[in-house]
């Protein structure tokens, strides 16, 4: 799968995420409190809501609609009402840009 230049690293605040749309799909790109970058599908697996409006705490993303949480490093669903894991994609930073493999 190709690596895509998604955004500048400093576009994402620490402990936050942004939405990234590409090729008709939507992704979420995260910056953890320890300054690592991650990428998952952009929609909650419960009811297809954009996670970009949600809340990042430590290594978890909380969905804005019903507060389901996922570990954005592994995609694992941690709290109902989500039961299905989020798909995750590799991410890396090069020269201040975030690249994701999708």
């Amino acid at each position, binding site marked *: 799968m190709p690596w895509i230049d998604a955004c500048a690293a400093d576009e994402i605040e620490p402990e936050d995420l942004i939405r990234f749309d590409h090729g008709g799909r939507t992704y979420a790109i995260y910056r953890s409190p320890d300054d690592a970058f991650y990428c998952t599908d952009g929609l909650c697996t419960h*009811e297809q809501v954009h996670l970009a409006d949600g809340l990042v*705490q430590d290594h978890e993303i909380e969905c804005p609609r*019903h*507060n389901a949480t996922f570990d954005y490093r592994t995609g694992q669903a941690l709290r*109902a*009402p989500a039961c299905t894991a989020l798909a995750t994609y590799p991410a890396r930073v090069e020269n201040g840009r975030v690249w994701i493999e999708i």
Partner: protein
Amino acid sequence: MAQRDYAMSGADARRAVETGLAAAEWYHTDIPRKEMKALMARADQPAIRDTGLLFGCMALFAGLGIALWPSWGSAPFWLAYGVLYGSAMDSRWHECGHGTAFRTRWMNDWLYQIASFCMVRNPVQWRWSHARHHTDTIIVGRDPEIQAMRPPALGRIALNFLGLLDAWQGWTKMLRNAAGRLDPDEADYVPEHEAPRLIRVARIWVAIYAATIALALATSSLLPLMVIGLPRLYGAWHHVMTGLLQHAGLADNVTDHRLNTRTVYMNPVSRFIYWNMNYHIEHHMFPMVPFHALPRLHDRIRADLPAPSPSILAAYREVLPILWRQLRNEEHFLTRALPPTARPYRAELHRHAPGVPAE
């Protein structure tokens, strides 16, 4: 207009799905991400303080009630204990169900289990039904938590001030679940793999009630049931009083919470019992914002919302005449004016709301 069908598998439920009313996009006031993040931020401290106060008061009031039992002098303490058990636990159940009460997850889950037991709401089943209430707030046939249906069943609402129907339903459901069965509405929103957990909780509760009843029989005294079980009835009135104001008399089948939800200013004691859920439009628009930040959120977005009801009494003065009229004409409801600073209601967000708005 045909009578509304509130069943989760009924005609209105099918129509809501066909017309795109179910799981629709809802109106939100615009708040920049940075501000929103600050409002959503979680903390343990406010909930630890309030939970300490809640359990401390419960122990004190129950202790005094037991000490003065069976004289009438114990009655005020039972009333106070009952409201904390049968009403404050409703708002704790609600906030912890959202996972917003504490920052630390195990604290949330721990209080959620206790509050669910007090309210006789299976913590597994209600987690799913409340998710639906947020996706499809007051959408007929989709929202399983509509209290004032149309036409309103006033007798039913009155009985619930003493928890009679709700708690009774809770206990019968508990027994059914403990026997390993789910009813069809439950099966509609509880995923299959959650059923064993739901059943296990119901069995634990049956064991607790059985022990309480056995103690009452062994001591030939009502006292154990005054502490566990009965306060769900004699203390329910406050959560029904505040809960009814959330949506009653307002539009149904709309996708703008300003049209179907009410914010009410309340006294500090009621706000403690209700854990700030009087800021109810704010809660529905942004369910990620914890109870302690709702007053701040209210200040931030009030210019975009209809004016709040100034008190519980004022809100009832607004609601009761509408419910009364709905007995004869269920299409009647209230649309509140927006301040000039607000973004106007968009017709397409309430094109499915039939009826005659009262101004």
